[in-house]
């Protein structure tokens, strides 16, 4: 109820203010928003949905259309209300005549009708939408022009800027705005006692040189470009692109001109002699979501990725909603559907896949590069030297005699395993088992979901002694999916249990115990498998860990595998006896049964055929007569033997350990990062209704939106051409968009409030001249970001108090006229940084891989392929700034999410600022904040202070201002209450102070400490603590 009422209130008050200052109706500011909102959906740019009089329907979005002869009458006749059909229709009482029609979800209110009437009366003058006009170059930029342009709007209301905020508020504001971190008490003292006339400018300059400036700016930029550490779709797997994040931080710190920043991200790979940094920057093009979902159609996903790039780039740089023209011409702005696909076509050269099959296992998400850190080279040098020495030693150890012996040993095929021919075969559920000539058994027919095969054998007594072991070969077969050996769709099987028994005519069946199971290959990927893989031993475990686990062979399909096990005691099978082998296949994912297999036994050592582990090419050489081998072939054999020779084992393991050490050092000091690689561009067509399966649309080439300034171009344009067009001096959008957002960071609201759309559905700026002057200054400064920040901060307007003023409450309730500063809650990352910084826990290192703060267990349990658990970082990485938090798109760290950090699936130009009970629970109960409060209390307990002094200091350091007596009284009472409780329950005190990785200070009394933790927790939960004022 209140909500609806307020809506009216807001829209009226803003109009009232504007009208008071500028009596003339301006089309772009006053009229177009009404027409666009209420009329364009049927009388706008989209020809397909256009209705009304005239041959092509009535268009109200163009001057021509609105003035056109509709067959004896006109929608608008300049200066003539009576003859303007538009006015008679919108004021009509007749249900069939009135516009918008009754069944239309929008209607016009009386104020809107009045404004339209006045406009027609005043001559219905048209103008190009404000943001598409060239930037106004005539605005005077001498002296304190920002303040002058703000005061220009205030003077008619007899209002001036507010008084300057006090030092404490001012310094706190400046620190949060520039660094995202609070000032310390000593910084405040220094600021207060500075006597220089330029103390403000000096402080600003100092902070702009801090490396934390880049971190603060990156928080905002990363939202825009939707930076994340996971791919977002389906399994939301991790992807490594953190060097891009560090590039952004570094670029703001180096004050890289914004035009170059733009080129490097969109087209760093295309720059001549691209540096490593520029290639990392090109990772921008790879920040979108990607999918590895089985069954996804690559072409569909390539279409999704292409649209996403248009939506993102057009919002990030142009502040427009070109993305809306994917299925049809834009309904409000002059973008056509062709513009959309031409824009998309700039990115058609990016090497990528629609479906990253297998990336969930191997992590290959398209082109990437390794980025070593500064230390790697020096660390590697001695290791590589050692590696060379060992290699020489390895090659020079003589082995000739041993090679010959090895060749002789392997030259005879092993006869140790004897395949058995079944006497009988049985399966469940109607499955048919057929015995082949080679003694193998092939399964077919129904019942493949799960099964138990029972096979009986007699032993060829003449050939064999007591049997020591059994072998099950899983064999490929053309009749099986993926050639087997299993019957599952991919060729897999799971043998959950192999049981053996001896049956003789006159006796009870005796089961024979199997031990030491091994397999020639075991499926590695484990998920929740208790054996950490699909192991041979799981087939003789009597199903103690569940019958679904067993031996399996993914992804090695279409080849043979062997599984062997020893009998606990060697068995003689009498002539009247049979060996019964039962193979159970009870995996819970149906279909994992054996397709073709063979059973053998041995009376010798139970081992795989020694030739089995030797590659076929080497076996072929071994089988040649000595005389027939060339010297080269002998060398090959010798080289292979060195790789397995027992006498070289020690050396080999030394080499392997060193190799591993080198790999580990490299891995620790190298990050990979996705980069852009340019290939032959894909064909790009206009997709009718955005339908990726419809190939009937025309082929398009890269080009900027047709109605914006551009130069004629020959040949195919590239992403670099796009970047150059975006930052061309006559592009009316880019500079306006950037300075508008910068203004938002420093004042809480943009000069044009809708940060992601300065098109006709956005907001006409509260201070159009100021916005244009800032945009021009930005371009003329050489796109100098720090210059713009410095300039805005130098204004009196920035430094004014944010306190509400009663005279403003009615005329400007949302502070759009800027007669005071704003107050707003810190961004999610800064909420964290602030608490860590105040407590002293914050680790101020710059850059590096993303880190994982504590989070409640089990949050990632909905993810699969692979299943995941969250392992919080330990040590210094636990206390890094929020900007480095692992950005799991689907399950973002809850403390971030609850303070409105976006998932970054899409470009975000403005975060909401909510104020919810769930966020209160974070500040109250998240161990990160409890630990920070405790460490903060510990610090002040180390000092010689009485209770009152200590509480005062706690308030002052956390809030960078003096404490009042009332405040210390409240907190002192709290401390006493808690002290009484913990004195009675000292164990509880110990629990509280143990929260977090950092152990409590050993010399402090737990009860005393716990009572002060209540105080610091209370301070951390204050509204003021997380508010920029």
């Amino acid at each position, binding site marked *: 109820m209140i909500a609806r009422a307020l809506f009216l*209130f807001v829209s009226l008050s803003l109009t009232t203010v504007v009208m008071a200052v500028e009596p003339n109706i301006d089309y772009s500011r006053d009229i177009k928003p009404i027409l666009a909102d209420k009329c364009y959906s049927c009388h706008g740019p989209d020809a397909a949905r256009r209705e009304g009089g005239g041959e092509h329907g009535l268009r109200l979005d163009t001057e021509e259309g609105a003035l056109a002869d509709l067959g004896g009458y006109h929608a608008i006749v300049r200066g003539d209300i009576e003859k303007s059909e538009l006015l008679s229709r919108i004021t009509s009482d007749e249900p069939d005549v009135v516009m918008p029609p009754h069944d239309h979800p929008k209607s016009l209110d009386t104020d809107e009708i009045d404004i339209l009437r006045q406009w027609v009366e005043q001559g219905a003058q048209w103008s190009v939408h404000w943001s598409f006009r060239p930037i106004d170059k005539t605005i005077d930029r001498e002296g304190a022009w920002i303040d002058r342009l703000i005061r220009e709007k205030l003077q008619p209301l007899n209002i001036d800027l507010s008084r300057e905020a006090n030092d404490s508020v001012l310094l706190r504001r400046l620190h949060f705005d520039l660094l995202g971190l609070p000032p310390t008490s000593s910084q405040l003292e220094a600021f207060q006692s500075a006597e220089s006339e330029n103390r403000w400018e000096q402080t600003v300059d100092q902070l702009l040189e801090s490396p934390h400036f880049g971190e603060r700016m990156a928080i905002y930029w990363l939202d825009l470009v939707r930076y994340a550490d996971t791919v977002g779709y389906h399994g939301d797997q991790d992807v490594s692109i953190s060097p891009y994040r560090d590039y952004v931080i570094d670029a703001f710190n180096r004050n890289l001109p914004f035009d170059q920043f733009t080129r490097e991200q969109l087209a760093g790979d295309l720059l001549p002699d691209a540096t490593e940094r520029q290639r990392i920057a090109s990772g921008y093009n790879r920040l979108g979501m990607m999918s590895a979902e089985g069954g996804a159609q690559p072409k569909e996903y390539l279409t999704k990725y292409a649209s996403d790039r248009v939506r993102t780039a057009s919002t990030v740089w142009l502040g427009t909603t070109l993305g809306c023209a994917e299925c049809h011409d834009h309904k409000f702005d002059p973008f056509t559907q062709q513009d959309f696909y031409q824009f998309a076509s700039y990115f058609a050269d990016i090497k990528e896949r629609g479906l990253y099959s297998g990336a969930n296992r191997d992590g290959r998400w398209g082109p990437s590069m390794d980025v070593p850190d500064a230390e790697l080279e020096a660390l590697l040098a001695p290791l590589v030297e050692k590696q060379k020495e060992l290699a020489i030693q390895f090659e020079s150890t003589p082995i000739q005699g041993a090679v010959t012996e090895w060749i002789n040993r392997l030259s005879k095929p092993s006869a140790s395993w004897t395949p058995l021919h079944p006497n009988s075969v049985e399966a469940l559920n109607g499955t048919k088992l057929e015995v082949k000539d080679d003694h193998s058994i092939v399964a077919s027919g129904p019942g493949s979901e799960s099964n138990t095969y029972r096979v009986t054998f007699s032993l060829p007594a003449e050939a064999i002694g007591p049997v020591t072991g059994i072998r099950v070969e899983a064999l490929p077969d053309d009749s099986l999916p993926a050639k087997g050996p299993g019957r599952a*769709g991919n060729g897999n099987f799971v043998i959950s249990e192999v049981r053996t028994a001896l049956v003789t005519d006159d006796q009870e069946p005796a089961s024979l115990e199997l031990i030491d199971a091994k397999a020639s290959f075991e499926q590695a990927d484990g998920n929740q498998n208790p054996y950490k893989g699909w192991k041979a031993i799981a087939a003789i475990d009597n199903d103690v860990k569940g019958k679904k686990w067993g031996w399996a062979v993914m992804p090695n399909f279409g080849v043979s595998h062997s599984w062997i096990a020893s009998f606990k005691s060697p068995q003689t099978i009498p002539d009247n006896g049979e060996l019964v082998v039962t193979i159970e296949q009870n995996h819970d994912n149906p279909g994992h049964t054996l397709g073709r297999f063979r059973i053998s036994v041995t009376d010798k050592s139970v081992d795989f055929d020694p030739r089995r582990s030797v590659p076929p090419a080497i076996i072929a050489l071994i089988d040649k007569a000595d005389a027939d081998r060339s010297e080269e072939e002998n060398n090959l054999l010798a080289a292979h033997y060195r790789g397995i020779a027992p006498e070289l084992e020690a050396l080999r393991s030394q080499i392997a350990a060193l190799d591993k050490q080198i790999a580990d050092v490299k891995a620790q000091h190298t990050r990979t990062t996705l980069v852009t690689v340019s290939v032959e561009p894909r064909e790009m067509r206009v997709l009718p209704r955005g339908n990726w399966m419809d190939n009937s649309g025309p082929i398009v080439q890269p080009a900027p939106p047709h109605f914006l300034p551009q130069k004629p171009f020959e040949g195919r344009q590239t992403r670099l051409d796009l970047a150059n067009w975006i930052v061309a001096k006559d592009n009316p959008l880019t500079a306006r968009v950037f300075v508008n957002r910068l203004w938002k960071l420093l004042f809480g609201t943009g000069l044009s409030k809708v940060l992601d759309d300065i098109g006709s559905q956005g907001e006409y700026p509260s201070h159009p001249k100021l916005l244009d002057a800032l945009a021009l200054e930005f371009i003329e400064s050489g796109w100098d970001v720090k210059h713009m920040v410095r300039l805005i901060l130098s204004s009196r307007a920035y430094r004014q108090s944010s306190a509400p003023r009663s005279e403003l409450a009615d005329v400007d309730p949302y502070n759009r006229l800027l007669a005071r500063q704003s107050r707003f809650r810190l961004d999610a990352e800064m909420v964290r940084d602030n608490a860590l910084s105040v407590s002293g826990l914050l680790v101020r290192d710059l850059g590096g891989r993303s880190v994982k703060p504590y989070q409640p267990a089990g949050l990632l349990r909905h993810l699969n392929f692979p299943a995941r658990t969250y392992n919080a970082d330990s040590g210094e990485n636990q206390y890094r700034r929020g900007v480095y938090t692992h950005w799991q798109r689907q399950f973002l760290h809850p403390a971030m999410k609850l303070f409105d950090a976006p998932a970054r699936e899409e470009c975000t130009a403005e975060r909401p600022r909510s104020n919810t009970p769930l966020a209160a629970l974070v500040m109250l109960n998240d161990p990160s904040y409890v630990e920070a409060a405790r460490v903060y209390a510990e610090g002040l307990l180390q000092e010689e202070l009485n209770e009152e002094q200590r509480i005062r200091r706690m308030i002052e350091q956390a809030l960078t201002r003096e404490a009042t007596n009332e405040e210390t009284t409240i907190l002192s009472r709290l401390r006493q209450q808690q002290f009484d409780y913990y004195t009675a329950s000292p164990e509880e005190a110990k629990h509280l102070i143990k929260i977090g990785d950092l152990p409590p200070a050993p010399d402090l009394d737990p009860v005393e400490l716990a009572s002060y933790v209540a105080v610091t927790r209370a301070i951390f939960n204050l509204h003021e603590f997380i508010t920029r004022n």
Partner: protein
Amino acid sequence: MTPESLARQSQRRTFLRHGSYGIGAAALHSLLATGGVPAAEPVENKSDRASQHWEGVYPVIPEQQRIKRVIHLCMAGGPSHLETLDHKPKLAEMDGQPMPKSYTEGKQIAQLQGQADRLKCLGPQHEFKKFGESGLEISSVLPEIGGIADDICVIRSMQTDQINHDPAHTLMNTGTSIPGRPSMGSWLLYGLGCETDNLPGYVVLTSVGGGQSQPIAARQWHSGFLPSRFQGVEFRSQGDPVLYVKSPNGVNLDNQRQVIDAVQQLNQLGDARFQDPEIRTRIAQYELAFKMQMSAPDLMDLSDESQETLDLYGTKGGDGSFAANCLLARRLAERGVRFIQLYHRGWDHHGGIKQGAEVTAKLVDRGTAALVKDLKQRGMLEDTLVIWGGEFGRTPMAQGSGRDHHIMGFSCWMAGGGIRPGFSWGATDELGYEAVENPVHVHDLHATMLHLFGVDHERLTYRFQGRDFRLTDVHGRVVNEILT
């Protein structure tokens, strides 16, 4: 002090005069300045606006509102309509024979792509039976749901646009496959507000079992471009039901209350000093946070449930099963939660569908039926909408021993306020491939659901990126034929 006495004490607190569930003034501002609903009466008292109970932006006319809440039982993974709700004898006859090309040519398929020449029919793997007086045909693997046949309305002509799990869920929840849009629960909270202050208005519960567990993204319950205040909150059956709802170790509720009291007193001093309406909202939110701390354990504590009830659901609770979640769903519904969504991740039967469908069905059958019966016996079914179904169906063609994803035709059912009981609507062709009779698109489902709340799906809008967005995008038709 007991939780009850704490609750009483907190109710006496003067600052509660300001009301309860406020949305932050800043968020409210952005919400209202862009709101797509016609404005109404003038502001009575501006200074209190930030801390008012959020009643939603949509002017519902009470007589038009049939339901107060939705319980969406989402059968995630894509249950086969051919083994659950859509009986196709002809498909049984065609078992093992080539799928006629006239059905499949030019159509989108997922994992069977590239096998167009080798597609074979797979007959229904389970018997169907007629249930109840209505005689609705339901698979024998869902006997308990069969038992409530006379309370439900089966739709056998569902269609969707998205053939992979992630985008199909996103469409089912947000009306589009493009990420970043609000889910239906968020739309409801934005439009209608919520009846509880002690619990979130939109709660999600999940369970697994019976088949491959496809991932579920938090996008499915996200508020998209709506303020995050409206996002779904996942309740967990292990650990704290709500994230951070438990006080830190070593801090009991009394201690916590003392800390919060100090915070509130200090914030009030701040309010006097700064006159910032956000502070008043913050104060109200801390009260609510504490109420949640007290009421969450109460929600999870099933000791007040009768043995009959526990037997009805077949659970003792606390085991993370679908049945336990159904019981929790009823408790949430009783406490005024607007939108309750239960995911059961176990219906993705690419292989072994005979056994798979049976196993998964068994895991959800009893809990589902118990929920409907329980709501009914408590008189709550008449103002609750229960929706049971997946993000898509499965192919009549075999994929080995299973079925592939399928979007041209599938089934779901609804029950509750305003829904015609013991009724079926729409039909697929004789092989269960395409919805040929009265197709119902996901958008239509959304339009119908909103209609039951008394909301015109074309009028509940939100301005974002220059456009008025709505749950049904530019589509949606109320399926009046299934309404009473």
